């Protein structure tokens, strides 16, 4: 049931002792880097100043901008000879960030990915098809290494080529997949086209969903259509990648591996910690990374800590499904909106298909939101009234949630642009 029982079920006080010892070491290691070396000098801080976990607040927060400004080697805490791997974020805004790993860093990262997969019930007898992009993106290689360490047979399928994916599943009896949720929904139409029923014609049991935030309803749809269990996971390249947090079989929040990371939730405006259970921005500190330790990193991801112990027996804290990124947030007529909110509402409406697109436009001084929604094929009965009712219902549901009346357009199933990577949910045509 446990990959490392002692660590996973470690009582809270012992876990905190472990964290404190590791934090001190991490601060010590970090001081060797240009960035933290300078910062500690400026703030007159060293590892002796860390006497309790509370003292972590003495360390200033690190942001993505800090990583960018000290690109590429400013955070490096070891000699470049020690590095064996680099990964880079997709860098959709501004310059990409780069993270370096030593051989031990890769080992520790691989271990938490294996631990996470084991937690969901994956075993060495499983056949794991990794349908993520390999390369600079951490999702592909991170899971690959973890699954190999666990001992499963890994099919390094990579992203895309839908028909081949399905063929591989059938030929080699794939039991577990790692897939982007929007792609999992899109793939269903390819299954249908090929006359393959994922429920009865494959041996799939587990899906690891990652790389983009998704709603509970999307998970339910994937579980139902594929006849599997789908587990949410969370990671970011700055904190290694996948494996930072993962759902256990209870599927009630994601455990963050606290022997590897210190978790804080802060108010993104005041930067003060919020009480347990309240929503805020996730801040993480690496505890076991030698090559590039990062302390108090602002992830820009919004979530909350689920108070109380988990029934699974693991003592590591749980976070809720990511509500959105402070980056993804749309501000429309002064209202803050997250694309995931829209998805959540849409997926609750019967008749809504698998894809949608939000388009923002500015007309004069007014911002307008149009939501293009694919209709579910089976829903269409030839009745215009029924479609009109669906459209009206979507408008009402969205209006109730985001307090803005969007224009809703129903479009044909499969007509919106599909993505084999992270889904494009928002097109912002407003001028800066």
């Amino acid at each position, binding site marked *: 049931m446990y990959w490392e029982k002692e660590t996973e079920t470690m009582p809270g006080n012992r876990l905190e002792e472990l964290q404190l010892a590791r934090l001190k070491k991490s601060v010590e290691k970090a001081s060797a880097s240009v960035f933290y070396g300078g910062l500690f000098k400026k703030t007159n801080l060293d590892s002796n100043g860390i006497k309790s976990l509370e003292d972590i607040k003495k360390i200033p927060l690190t942001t993505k901008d800090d990583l960018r400004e000290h690109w590429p080697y400013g955070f490096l805490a070891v000699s470049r000879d020690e590095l064996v791997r680099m990964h880079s974020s997709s860098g959709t805004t501004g310059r990409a960030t780069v993270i370096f790993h030593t051989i031990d860093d890769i080992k520790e990262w691989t271990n938490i990915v294996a631990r996470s997969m084991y937690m969901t019930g994956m075993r060495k007898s499983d056949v794991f098809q990794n349908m993520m992009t390999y390369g600079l993106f951490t999702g592909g290689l991170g899971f690959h290494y973890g699954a190999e360490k666990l001992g499963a047979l890994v099919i390094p399928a990579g992203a895309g080529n839908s028909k081949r994916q399905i063929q591989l599943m059938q030929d080699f009896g794939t039991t577990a997949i790692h897939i982007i949720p929007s792609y999992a929904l899109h793939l269903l139409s390819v299954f249908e086209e090929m006359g393959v029923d994922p429920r009865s014609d494959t041996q799939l049991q587990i899906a690891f969903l990652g790389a983009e935030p998704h709603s509970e309803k999307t998970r339910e749809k994937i579980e139902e259509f594929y006849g599997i269990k789908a587990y949410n996971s969370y990671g970011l390249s700055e904190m290694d990648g996948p494996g930072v947090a993962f759902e256990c079989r209870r599927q009630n929040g994601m455990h963050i591996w606290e022997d590897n990371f210190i978790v804080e939730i802060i108010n993104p405006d005041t930067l003060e910690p919020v009480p347990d259970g309240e929503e805020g921005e996730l801040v993480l500190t690496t505890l076991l990374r030698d090559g590039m330790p990062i302390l108090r990193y602002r992830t820009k991801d919004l979530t909350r800590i689920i108070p109380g112990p988990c029934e699974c027996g693991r003592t590591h804290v749980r976070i809720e499904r990511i509500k959105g990124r402070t980056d993804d947030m749309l501000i429309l007529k002064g209202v803050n909106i997250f694309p995931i909110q829209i998805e959540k509402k849409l997926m609750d409406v019967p008749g809504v298909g698998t894809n949608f697109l939000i388009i923002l436009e500015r007309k004069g001084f007014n911002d307008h939101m149009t939501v293009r929604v694919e209709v579910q094929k089976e829903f*269409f*009965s*030839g*009745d215009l009234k029924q479609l*009109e009712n669906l*459209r009206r219902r979507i408008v009402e549901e969205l209006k109730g949630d985001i307090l803005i009346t969007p224009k809703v*357009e129903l479009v*044909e199933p499969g*007509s919106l642009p599909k993505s084999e990577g992270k889904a494009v949910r928002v097109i912002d045509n407003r001028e800066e």
Partner: protein
Amino acid sequence: MVAYQLSVFAENKPGRLAKVTGILKKGKINIRAITISTSDGFGVINLIVDDPERARSILEDEGLTVSMKEVVAVVIEDKPGGLDKLIQLLFDEDINVENAYGFVLESREKAVFVVDVNQLEKTQKVLEDAGLKTLDAQALSAIEPFHYMKY
């Protein structure tokens, strides 16, 4: 007898109808009647064709969203009062018409009126009792006046 009406879901933008007629042309499907109803940005194209099953399958193969439903195709006289006779009859029987459209079979002789009703079985019985002829898919295919041109 019941006939089949195909309905295609289409966004209301140039090219969507052309796509539908293009596919049907390629499949050598003859369109007996077509109506289009639109709402805000989208619409439904209703079709009566000579081979609804095949038409449905080739449209779906091209990725279109199609549904098929039973409608009643009534033969009426192509002269003043021809339609009124039918409509009065439906009214007397309290049958509500959801959608309807017609086409001429033989000028000044016969026309077909297609009605989509809420009570299909009752309608069929009422029409039968009144001696009105209804056409099924096969009949709609066979009444093709230029049948010999099919190759």
